C-alpha cells in the first residue's frame, strides 16, 4: 500500500491549497513559453513541458529583492526591513530544481545567514514531480543523482501506471501539508513507476580534477568563442546565485535591492581603475565552469550545477555546458592526473600579469 494522488486530483490539490490561503506557484503557459508563476486558478497549471523556462530560484531568491527601504530626511534617514513572504505551495519542479535548493541553502547559510532566502524557504512547501521523460539537455544522472531524487523536496510525486502519482512525503513540512489537504490523497496499490533516466554522459569524478589542474589550457581559448556574454544561462540556472546590491528610489526615499547579476557580464568584475581580472568572455566562461564544479564543490560539498539543462536550451548560440563537460571528460581520460603530491598545485614560480590570452 502507498499513498497515491490520482492525476485528476491534481487540480483539487491546488484548489485545496488555495482555499487554505496558500499562494500556489507552478508551471503555466504565458506568451508561448512555460514559466513558473503564481497560479490564479488550478486550471492554469501546465505540465506539458519537461522543464520550465525559468527556474524555481525566483521564488527563493527573486530577480529583485528589497533588502530594506529608506526614507530620506534633511539630515536623518529612517530605514525599515519588514519582511514576511507569503505561505507558498510550489508544485511542478523537478528533482534537479529541488536539489538546487539544498545546495543554495549552504551558500545562503554559510556563516552569515540570509534571512530573505531562508524565510522564503521556510514559508514554501516544495512538491516535486519525478520525470517520466528527458531531453538531450538533461544530465542529472551525470551529476550523481536522478529524476526521482527526493533531496530538497517536501513531497515527491512519482508518476505511475494507472494515471496516478505515488506520493512520498519527504519532510515534516510535506507531511503537514498532506494532512492539511488529506481529502485529495488515497491509499492504494501503486502501479509501476514511470521514471525516465537520461544516460550518464561524463565522469564527474574526472572533470573536477581536470578543471583544477588546467587553469591554462587551449580549451579555454578555442571552445568559448561564440559566447555572446549575455546572462541567460546564469539567470535561468537554478544554482547561479551571484547578485548585485543597488539603491532604487528618488529624493524622498526608496529601496536597497538585491538583484541577480551574472559572472558572464564584462562589468561584473571590472575595477574602478579600469583593470578587469577577467578581461575576456572566455575567462568568464572558465570562471563559470570552475565555480560550478571546483570552487563550489570544495566549499559546499556539492556542485553548483544540477543538470537541468536550462542554460543549454536557452543559450542564443547553443553553447552547451554539457558538450564542454563531455569534452573535458574526454580530455581528462586522455591525460590522466599526475600522481598525487608530484607537484603542489598551481604555485606560481613567476609572478605574472593577467593578460588576454583569448584573442585568435
Amino acid at each position, binding site marked *: 500500500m502507498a499513498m497515491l494522488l490520482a492525476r485528476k486530483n491534481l487540480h483539487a490539490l491546488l484548489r485545496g491549497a488555495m482555499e487554505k490561503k496558500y499562494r500556489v506557484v507552478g508551471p503555466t503557459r504565458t506568451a508561448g513559453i512555460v514559466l513558473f508563476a503564481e497560479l490564479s486558478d488550478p486550471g492554469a497549471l501546465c505540465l506539458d513541458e519537461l522543464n520550465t523556462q525559468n527556474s524555481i530560484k525566483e521564488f527563493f531568491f527573486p530577480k529583485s529583492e528589497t533588502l530594506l527601504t529608506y526614507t530620506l530626511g534633511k539630515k536623518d534617514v529612517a530605514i525599515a526591513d519588514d519582511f514576511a513572504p507569503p505561505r507558498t505551495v510550489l508544485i511542478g519542479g523537478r528533482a534537479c530544481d529541488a536539489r538546487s535548493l539544498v545546495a543554495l541553502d549552504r551558500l545562503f547559510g554559510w556563516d552569515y545567514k540570509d534571512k530573505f532566502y531562508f524565510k522564503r524557504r521556510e514559508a514554501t512547501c516544495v512538491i516535486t514531480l519525478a520525470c517520466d521523460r528527458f531531453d538531450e539537455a538533461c544530465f542529472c544522472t551525470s551529476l550523481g543523482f536522478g529524476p526521482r531524487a527526493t533531496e530538497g523536496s517536501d513531497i515527491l510525486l512519482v508518476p505511475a501506471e494507472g494515471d496516478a502519482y505515488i506520493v512520498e512525503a519527504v519532510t515534516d513540512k510535506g507531511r503537514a501539508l498532506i494532512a492539511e489537504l488529506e481529502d485529495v490523497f488515497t491509499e492504494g496499490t501503486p502501479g509501476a513507476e514511470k521514471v525516465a533516466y537520461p544516460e550518464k554522459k561524463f565522469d564527474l569524478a574526472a572533470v573536477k580534477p581536470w578543471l583544477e589542474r588546467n587553469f591554462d589550457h587551449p580549451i579555454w581559448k578555442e571552445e568559448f568563442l*561564440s559566447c555572446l556574454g549575455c546572462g541567460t544561462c546564469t539567470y535561468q540556472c537554478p544554482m547561479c546565485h551571484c547578485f548585485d546590491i543597488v539603491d*532604487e528610489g528618488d529624493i524622498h526615499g526608496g529601496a536597497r535591492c538585491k538583484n541577480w547579476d551574472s559572472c558572464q557580464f564584462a562589468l561584473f568584475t571590472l575595477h574602478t581603475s579600469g583593470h578587469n581580472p577577467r578581461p575576456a568572455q572566455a575567462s568568464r566562461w572558465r570562471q563559470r565552469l570552475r565555480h560550478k564544479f571546483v570552487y563550489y564543490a570544495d566549499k559546499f560539498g556539492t556542485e553548483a550545477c544540477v543538470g537541468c539543462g536550462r542554460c543549454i536550451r*536557452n543559450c542564443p548560440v547553443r553553447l552547451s555546458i554539457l558538450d564542454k563537460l563531455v569534452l573535458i571528460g574526454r580530455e581528462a581520460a586522455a591525460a590522466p592526473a599526475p600522481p598525487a603530491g608530484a607537484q603542489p598545485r598551481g604555485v606560481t614560480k613567476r609572478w605574472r600579469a593577467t593578460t588576454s590570452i583569448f584573442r585568435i
Partner: protein
Amino acid sequence: MIEQLRQRARELLGEGKVALVIGHGRGSSPQATFPVFITKADAVDRLVFNPFCRNNLAVYLTRKDIMPKGAVGLVARPEEVRSVAVLVQEQQFDADRVVLIGVACAEPGKEGAACEMLKGRTLKELEAEVAERLKGRDPAQDVAARVKELEAMTPEQRLAFWEKEFSRCIRCYACRQACPMCYCERCIVEKNQPQWIPSSARPLGNYFWNVIRAFHLAGRCIGCGACARACPMGIPLDLLNAKVAREVKESFAYEAGFDHEVPPPMASFRTDDEQEFIK
C-alpha cells in the same frame, strides 16, 4: 552549394586573405546549428548551411576580445550583409576588414527550403543583390501584422500590454548581446552617473530599458530578429524594432543596411523633414 561555401572559405584561409572564417556549424541536429570559428583551411568541413542557420554572425565582428588583427571571413546571409553595411556605415571597421561569403535561403526556418550562394563579392555588390532579392517581399509579415494589431489599441491598452510583456524581463541582456548593432563599449543601461535606467528587474527599469534600446536602434535595426529569438522570456522585442523601422522608412524614406555609403538617418537631416507634430 555547401561545397562552394567551403571552397571559398578554404581559399580565403589557404591564401592567407583572412585569419578567421565565422560561419555556422552543425549541432546535434540540422535544426541546432551554432556559430563556428575556423582558422585553418583543413577545418572548413565544419561549416554547414541550411534554413535553420538563424544566428546573426555579424555580432562577433565588434568583439575585441576575440577578433584577430587581420581580416575576417564571414558567412553572410542577407541579414549579415545588411548588418555589416550598417557597421561599416557607422565606421566600426573598414569594409575591407570583412570578406563576405554571401549565402541565402529562400525560406529561412523552413525544412528543405533551397539555399544558394550569393553572387556578389564586395559589400556594395552584395548590398545591391540583397536589395534586389528583398524587393517586393516583406519577410516579416507576421510581425508587421502584430504591430498593426497593437496600433489599433488605445495608449492605455498598449501600456498594459507592454507592462505585462516587460514584467517577464530578467535583464539578462541577451537581446543586446545578440544584436550586431549593440556594440557600445558601455551601454546606457550601465551608465550610472546619473542612473538613467534603473538596473533592477522591476517594471520601471524594464520599461525604460526595452523602450530605449528600441530607440537606440532607430534607423539601424535591419530586422534580423536576433533579439527576440535570444530572449529567454519570450518578449516580442521585434515588434518594437519593426515599429521604429517602419516609422523611419515612412518619415525619411530610409531602410537600414542597403547602402553603407549614405549617412545614417539619425545622424543626418533634411531641412524639409516632416514636422506636422510640432506646434
